[in-house]
C-alpha cells in the first residue's frame, strides 16, 4: 500500500520534482476525496504539511494519507483537531468555529442578520464540544465529544474522505 501511495506521489509530482505543491494536492483532494471546501482544503494541506514548508514531502504524503484512509479513531481525532485549530494554539475558540461554520449555513432569511444564525450555530456546537465549559474546545474536550458521539468527528467541517471513497 505504501508502495502504491509512493507511486501515486511520484506520478503526481512529475518526473523531476521531489515535492508536492499546494494546487496539485488540492486537485487530489477534490477529485479523489470529494473535499471541496476551499478553506478546509487549505487546512488539510496544513495538517499534512508537518514541517510547514508549503510542500509535501513523500513522507508527509504517506503519513497523511495513512491517517486519512486507515487511521484509528485516536489518530483521526488528532488530525481533525489540527485541521480545526486554525491558529494552532491547542484550542478551538469561538472565533475559529465561527469562521469554519460560516459557510455552513446556506439558507439565510433575508431580514435576519446573516451572522446571527451562524453565531447561534456556534453556540450550539460549542455546547456539544466544550465539555469543561471554559468557552473553548481543547483536544481533551474534542476527544471526549467524539467518543460520546462519533458523528462529531467531522463536526466542524468535512475534512475526511467519505466512506464511499476507495483506496486508490
Amino acid at each position, binding site marked *: 500500500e505504501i508502495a502504491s501511495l509512493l507511486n501515486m506521489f511520484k506520478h503526481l509530482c512529475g518526473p523531476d520534482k521531489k515535492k508536492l505543491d499546494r494546487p496539485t494536492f488540492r486537485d487530489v483532494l477534490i477529485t479523489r476525496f470529494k473535499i471541496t471546501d476551499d478553506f478546509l482544503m487549505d487546512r488539510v494541506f496544513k495538517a499534512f504539511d508537518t514541517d510547514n514548508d508549503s510542500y509535501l514531502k513523500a513522507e508527509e504524503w504517506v503519513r497523511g494519507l495513512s491517517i486519512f484512509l486507515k487511521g484509528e479513531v485516536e489518530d483521526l481525532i488528532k488530525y481533525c483537531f489540527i485541521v480545526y485549530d486554525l491558529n494552532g494554539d491547542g484550542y478551538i475558540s469561538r472565533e475559529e468555529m465561527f469562521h469554519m*461554520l460560516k459557510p455552513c449555513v446556506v*439558507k439565510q432569511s433575508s431580514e435576519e442578520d446573516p451572522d446571527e444564525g451562524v453565531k447561534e450555530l456556534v453556540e450550539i456546537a460549542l455546547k456539544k464540544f466544550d465539555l469543561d465549559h471554559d468557552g473553548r474546545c481543547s483536544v481533551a474536550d474534542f476527544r471526549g465529544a467524539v467518543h460520546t458521539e462519533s458523528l462529531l468527528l467531522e463536526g466542524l467541517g468535512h475534512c475526511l474522505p*467519505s*466512506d464511499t471513497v476507495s483506496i486508490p
Partner: protein
Amino acid sequence: MGQALQRAAQWTSAKDGAGGKLEFTSINEDLLNAILKFVETTGKSTEEASLTFKTPLKWQTSLNPQHFQGSGFSDSGDDVISDNKSSKDDTPLLKLHKLAKDKYEVNISTLGYAEQVLRIAGDKKMVELRGCLEANRDPVVNMLGERFATVETDDNSIFRYIEEITKEIEQNAKQEQTAEGSKSAEVEEKKIVLRLRLKLLRLDEQLMNMSIQKMSSEVRLSPASVDGEVTILKQLSGSDETKCVLEYIDYYGETFVSKNGCRAQPWRQLHGDICYIYVKTHDKDTPLYITANTSGYYLNNGPDPEKPTQLDYTRPDSTTYRDLVSLLKDNSSKFAELIDQQEFTLKVEQNDKKKIEMSEQTEQNEDYQKKKNSYEQNTRNENDQDSDKDKNQKNRTQSKKKLEPSLKWKVLGVDDNKIQEEDKSITKTEKKKRPVQKYKSKTPIDKEEPFSESETESEEEEEAVERRAEANADLPSEYWQIQKLVKYLKGGNQTATIIALCSLRDFNLSLETCQLAIRDVGGLEVLINLLDTEEVKCKIGALKILKEISKNTQIRRAIADLGGLQTMVKILRDTNKDLKCLAAETIANVAKFRRARRTVRQHGGIKRLVSLLDCAGLNKPDMEKDVEVARCGALALWSCSKSKKNKEAMRKAGSIPLLAKLLKSTHEDMLIPVVGTLQECASEPSYRLAIRTEGMIEDLVQNLKSSNQELQMHCASAIFKCAEEKETRDLVRQYGGLDPLVTLLTNIENKELLAAATGAIWKCAISPENVQRFEELKAIDQLVTLLNNQPEEVLVNVVGALGELAKAPPNRMQIRKAGGISPLVNLLTGTNQALLVNVTRAVGKCAEEPDNMIIIDKLDGVRLLWSLLKNQNPEVQASAAWAICPCIENAKDAGEMVRSFVGGLELIVSLLKSEDKEVLASVCAAIANIAKDEENLAVITDHGVVPMLAKLTNTTDDKLRRHLAEAISRCCNWGNNRTAFGREDAVAPLVKYLKSSDENVHRSTARALFQLSKNPENCITMHEAGVVQPLMKMVGSQDEDLQEAAAGCIGNIRRLALANERAKYA
C-alpha cells in the same frame, strides 16, 4: 390444426351423440375456408397427398354412389370403393359405405382423395368438410397417428419424431451394405409424415391467428363484466349533478341471480340476455332501460304497459354497444360530459400509488388536519413576531397539503381502457377464465388488501391519534430549541446538519413533548428527506433520532405517512452496517401498526430484513457487527411478524432456517427478538411444523432455563403456540421442557411470564404422557394456588391446564385436595368467554369424581353452569352443557336438583334450536342425562323435546348423531313419545346412522332403535328403511351393549311380523 380446432372453433355446447356441432358463426366459417384451401393445395400435387392415413377419416356424407361414377371407382355391393388400394393392408383408399337408404358414410385414407371428395361435392364441399371435422375432432390423429394427438401442454412430439428419423438415417448409413430397400422407403415415408405434420402445424398457427383476430373484434359480454361495469357506475351515481355521472343505476326486475351470474329470467337467458338495467341520467326525465345481452348492450322498450312487472323486450333500434358507458354516452350528452371529467381525474392513478395507501386514512387525516390547523393558528397568534417560525409552519402546511389524498381517485372511469386491453390479451388464451380475472382486476385497491390480517393486529390501531389538545396551552422551552435546530437541519450544509442532529439527540427524545415538537416544527420531513441523501453520516444521525422518537405511536404514523418506510427499506440494502442496524431498528419501531407492516411488505422489506439475519459466525467475537445487524433484523421482523401476510412473506423469504441458526446464539439480546418472532409466527401451522422439524424446540426449551424473564416468557409462549401439535408436545417432554415450565410458575410477579408459562403447561398437558410428568412435578398444587388473584390472561391458561390435567382421574382428586374446586366454581361467575369455556370444561372434568361433585353441589356449581347456558357465545354454551352431563350423572338426587332450577329445563330444550353443532351435541348429551329422571322427562316432553330432536335427525355429524340417538333412546321412555318420534319422521334417518363408521354412533343408535321398535308403526318404518341387514351385522359385534340393543330391536321387529302372520291366519 388440432389446437385451433379445439380452442378457437366454436362448438355448440349441446352434445348430440358423439360430439358437438360446429356453430354457424363467422369464425368457424373462416376456419373452414382456410382448411379447405389447405386441402385443395396440398391434396393436388405433392407427395403428401398420397400418404396413407393411419386410420381413415370417416363421416356421414350427403354424397351418393352416383357422384362416384367414372374411372378409378368400382362398385362392390352397396359400397363404392376406389381402385387404388393402400399399400399396407390392401384396403381401398376411398370407400363409400351405405348405412341406410340415402345415408352413406365415406372413408378416405389420403389427402388426395380428400381433395377429390371435396371436388366431387362441388358447392356442397363446405357441408362435407364440416361433417368431416365434426366426426373427427382431432383429424391429425387419424392422419398421422396417436403420437401427434393434440395435447394441452407443450407439444414436442414433432421434435422427437425428427430425432427418430435422423437416428434411423444414421443407422442406415452404417449398415449401408446390408440395408434393404424397404428400410429406406420407411424413412422416406416418415419424412413425408414429418413434412405433412409441419404443414399442418403451420396451418394450425394460421387458423389460431385468424380466430384470435376475429375474437378480439367481437368479444362477448359475460355476467361478470356486466356486474363490474354496473358496480363502477353505481359508485359514480348520486343526486349531485356536478360530481355524479348518473342519478341512479340498478338492475331491473327480481334480485334473483342465477348460478351462472345472469339476472335475466331463465327463458330470456335462452336469448342470450344477461340482465336488465335501468339508468336515470341527469338530463332525461324517464329512465333508460337497457338489456345486457351476450352480444352487447342495447336499449329496450322498458316495462310493458300491460304487464307491469314485465319488460317489453323488443328493441326500438338495432344499435348494440360494446360497453355500457358508450351506450350511455350516446344517449345522454350530460353523461358523456361528466364521464369525461371523471376520466381525467383518473389518469394520475398509476403514477401515484402512495396516494392510494393514503386514501384509507383520508378521514382520519382530515380530522387530524383540522385540529392541526387550529393548533397552528393558536401558536401563530401567540408568536406573531416570530416570522421565521411562521414561515416554517407555512412550509409545513404546504407539505401537509400535498399529502391530502384526492377524493376522486376512486372514481374509476378510465378503467374501461384497461379492461379492454385486458380483454384482448386474455381472450387470446383463455376465454373461459376471463370474467373472473377481470372482476378481480377491476377493483384493485379494495381487493388487493382484504383486511384479513391475523387477530394479532392489536387494538393499538384504534388508539386515538390525537392527544395534543392540552399541549396547546404552554409550549415548553424545548419546543423553541428544537425548532431552532430543525432550522439548521433545513438550512445548513452537512456539517451544520450533523451538529444539529447531534444536538437534537441531547434532548430527552423519550419525552413525548420533544417527540411531538420535532414533528410539529416539520423536523420529521427533514429527517426523512435526509435518509434519501448520499451522506452516510447524516443518514446515521437522522436514523438515530428517528429510532428514538418512533417509539411514539403518533410519530410512527407520521413517519409512515411521509413515506419514511420506503426509504428505510431501501437503506437495508446499504453496505454500511451501522446504517442497516439503525434502519432495521427504526422499522421495528414503526412497524407496530398494520398499515406500516403492509408498506414494509409491499416494498420488499421482508426479504431484505430476512437477509439481514444471515450472518456467518454467530458466537465469534470478531463478528460483532454482523451479529448486531442480525439482531436488528430480527427485531424488525418481530414487529412485522404480527401480520399474517408478513409471516407468509417471511417464510417464503427463507427466514425459518436463519432463525433456527440464530436461536443457537448465546446473546440474550439476540435471542429475545428471535424467539419473539418465532412465537408470533407460531400461530401459523406451517411455522409450527418448521419449528419442530428444524429442531428449534430443543433450543426453546434450553432458553426456558435462561435467567432473563423476557426471554423465558417468549420461549414459553412459543411453546404455548407450538404445543398445539402432538409431536411438539412430545419433543418438549423429551428435551425436559416440562420441569422448567413448572418452575416458572413460582414467578408470581411477572404476569406475562406467568401467562405464557401456564399457557405452555395447558397445551402440553393435552398429551397424557406429559400429564404424568406434571403429576410428578406436583404442578397441580401450584396451579391451584394460581387460581386466586391473577389477571384473566393467566387464569384462562391455568384453568385450561387444570381442565386438561383433570382428564386423569387421580388428578381430579388432587385438585380437590389442593382446594381447587371452590375457586374454580367461583370463576363460573366471570364474564371472560375464553375463561368461561375453560372453567366449565375443568369443572365438568372434576365433576366426574363423585367426591368432587359433592363439593360442587354444595357450592351451587350446577346452577352456575346452568345459567351459563344463557351465554351468547356458543362455545360457552356447549362446554357448559358438556359440564352439566357428569354433574347430573354423579349428583345425588340429580332429578330433584334439576327440577329446582326455575325454567332450567325449558332453557335447555330451547338450545336445541342452536345452529352450532357442538352446542347441539352437548345439549343432546345433557338431555339424555336429564331424561333418566322420569319426572324431568315428562317436563321436557311438555316443552316439545320430541319434535325438536326429530328435526335434528338428518344431521351427518357423527358426534351429534351419537348424542342425539342417545337422547332419543332415553326420551322414548315416556308416554307416547315413541309414536311421536315415528310421527315426526325420526326413525328412517336413524337407520342411516348405522352406516356411519363410528362405533359409538352404532351403539347409541341401536339403543334408540331398540326403544323405538317397541312401537309397531316404527318397526314397519325401520324395516322399510332396511334396518335388518346392518343390525344383523351388529349382533355379531364385540360390544355387548351394541349386541344386546341390536338383537332386541330385531326381536321386536320379528315379533311384530309373527303377530301379523298370526293375525292373518287366525
